[in-house]
C-alpha cells in the first residue's frame, strides 16, 4: 500500500526510502504525524506502542497512508490523544541513553511487523 514512515530512528531511515526523517525527538515525530493527519493523510499504524516500556523508547516510527481531501476526525483524535498521553508519561523521566541501540532495533522490528500486516493491500 502507499505509505510514508515518519521516523526519528536512523535504522529505519537507512533501510526504507518511503520515509520522512525527523532529526529530533519522539515528540517531534508525533507532532509531524499530527500535522500530516490534519493535512488529510490517513493514519496507518497507531502512534503509541503496546507497552509502557516502549513508550520510554527514544525512537518511534509511525506509518501514514494516502492523502485525502478531507481530514479523518477519528485519526486526528487518536494522534492528539497519543501526544497528550506520551507527554504525560515522559515529562517525569530522563531519556534512557544506555539502551539506545536496542530501542532502535525494537522500533524497526515492530514497524516491520506493522508493515507485514499491510502487505498486499491497495
Amino acid at each position: 500500500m502507499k505509505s510514508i514512515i515518519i521516523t526519528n530512528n536512523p535504522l529505519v531511515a537507512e533501510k526504507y526510502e518511503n520515509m520522512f526523517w525527523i532529526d529530533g525527538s519522539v515528540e517531534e515525530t508525533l507532532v509531524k504525524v499530527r500535522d500530516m493527519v490534519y493535512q488529510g493523510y490517513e493514519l496507518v499504524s497507531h502512534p503509541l506502542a503496546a507497552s509502557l516500556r516502549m513508550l520510554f523508547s527514544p525512537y518511534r516510527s509511525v506509518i501514514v497512508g494516502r492523502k485525502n481531501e478531507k481530514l479523518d476526525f477519528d485519526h486526528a483524535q487518536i494522534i492528539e490523544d497519543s501526544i497528550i498521553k506520551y507527554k504525560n508519561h515522559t515529562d517525569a523521566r530522563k531519556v534512557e541513553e544506555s539502551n539506545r541501540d536496542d530501542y532502535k532495533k525494537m522500533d524497526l522490528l515492530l514497524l516491520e511487523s506493522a508493515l507485514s500486516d499491510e502487505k498486499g493491500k491497495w
Partner: protein
Amino acid sequence: MKLEIGRINIKDIQLGNETYVKNGVLTVDKVGLIATLKEDERIKDITIDIAKPGQKVRIIPVKDVIEPRVKITGGINGFPGVSSKQAQCGEGITHVLYGAAVVTVGDIVGFQEGVIDMWGEGALWTPFSKTFNLTVDINVIDGLEPHNHEETVRLAGLRAAEFVGQAGKNVTPDEVLTYEMGSIFEESTKYPNLPKVLYAEMMITQGLLHDTYIYGVNAQTILPSLLHANEELDNAVISGNCVAACDKITTYQHQNNSVILDLYAQHGKEINFMGCIMVPEHTTLSGKMRASDYTAKLVKMLGADALVVSEEGYGNPDSDLLIICKKCEKAGVKTVLITDECAGRDGMSQPLADTAVEAVAVVSTGNVSHVVTLLPAEKVIGKAEAIAVLAGGWEGALSADGSLQCELNAVIGATSEIGFHNATCRLY
C-alpha cells in the same frame, strides 16, 4: 468437554539428582534438566536456581512464568503445537504442581525489566512471590538474531515446565477440580433463563517481545477465534511477550486465567458462560477495525447478552478495548471492560489513551505508574545490571542504602488485566 485438574500441593522445592514430589516437596534433577534444555543447540549455558517465598531474593529480568504440569489422560503432554505434537487441549486429566513455578530469565534486549521480589514491598505486588520458583537463566550462543533468541528462551521455559511437571505423574492429587461444559446449545437448553456471557481476551500480538501463541500459531496472524473455556486452562495459550512486565499475561496466568475461572464458577448459577474469543491486538488501525468487527460479529452470531473484555498491555491496545466496547454496546450487548490504568504517580491523570461514552462498566486492576520501593536484595538471580534499568527512569530513584524506587510497571503481574494478581479494587 470435560477437564479435571488434579492439584498436587507443593510446600517446598529443592535441587537434587531426580525429579519427584514427596510429602509436598518438589525435588528437581538439576543436571538432567540442564541436559534436556541443552538439546537445543542455540543454548550456550543454563543456570538453574531456586527462589522461595520470604527469601531476600530478586529475580530479574523475568521472561516468562510457567506452571509445571503433566497430562495423565486425554490430549498430549506438554504444550500442544509448541513443545509437543498437535492435540486437543481441554479434555482428560491434567496434574498440576500447585504452588510451584518455572521462571525464565534472559535478556533479549537491554531494557527488559520484569522483576520478582520474594520479600518486602515488591513481594506484595507480584503473585509470583508466593510460588516456589525454579529459575532457569538461559544464555544463548553468540550471534543469534533477536527472533531466534526469543524463541530459544520461550521454548526452554516451556520444556523446563514439562520436565518438572513429570514429577506429578504418579502422585495422587490433593484436590481435583472439574471443568465441564457441553455445547452452546446444550448449555442454553439447560439454563434458558440465565444471561449468555462471552469472554473476549485481548492479546498483545505486535511483533518481537509482543506476541502470543495459540496451539503454537502466532496470534498476530489470526482472526479472532473462539475457544472452549477449557482449552486455555489446559496449555493451549502461551506468552511470547516480555516487555509489559506488570500487565503482560504470563503463560502461568493463561493456564490459570482468573476471568475464565470466575466466569466458570458462576456458570449455571448466575450466568451461562459460553466461551472465550481470543482477540489479537494489532498495531495498525485497519487491524484494530478488523479484529473488533470480527469480535462483535462473533458475539452477535452466538447471541450473547453480555461480554467481558480483558486487555493486555497499555497504549495502542486501549483503542481496541474501547472500539470493541462501542461496537458491542451499540449492538445491545452489555459490555464490561477489565484494564489497568496509567494514571500518573498520583493516580490523577486520565487512565487510558482513549475514551468512549459506551464504557460504563470498567474494572481497574491498578495504576501502573504507582511508585514502589524495592529494598536491596541479598541475592539477585539473573542480571544485576538490569536493576539499573529499573532505577534509570528519573533522578533520585536510587537511595544511598541501595533501595530503589520504581513504577509498578516493572513488577511482574502487578496490575494483571485478567485479575491474576494481588491488588484489589473498591466499588465506586
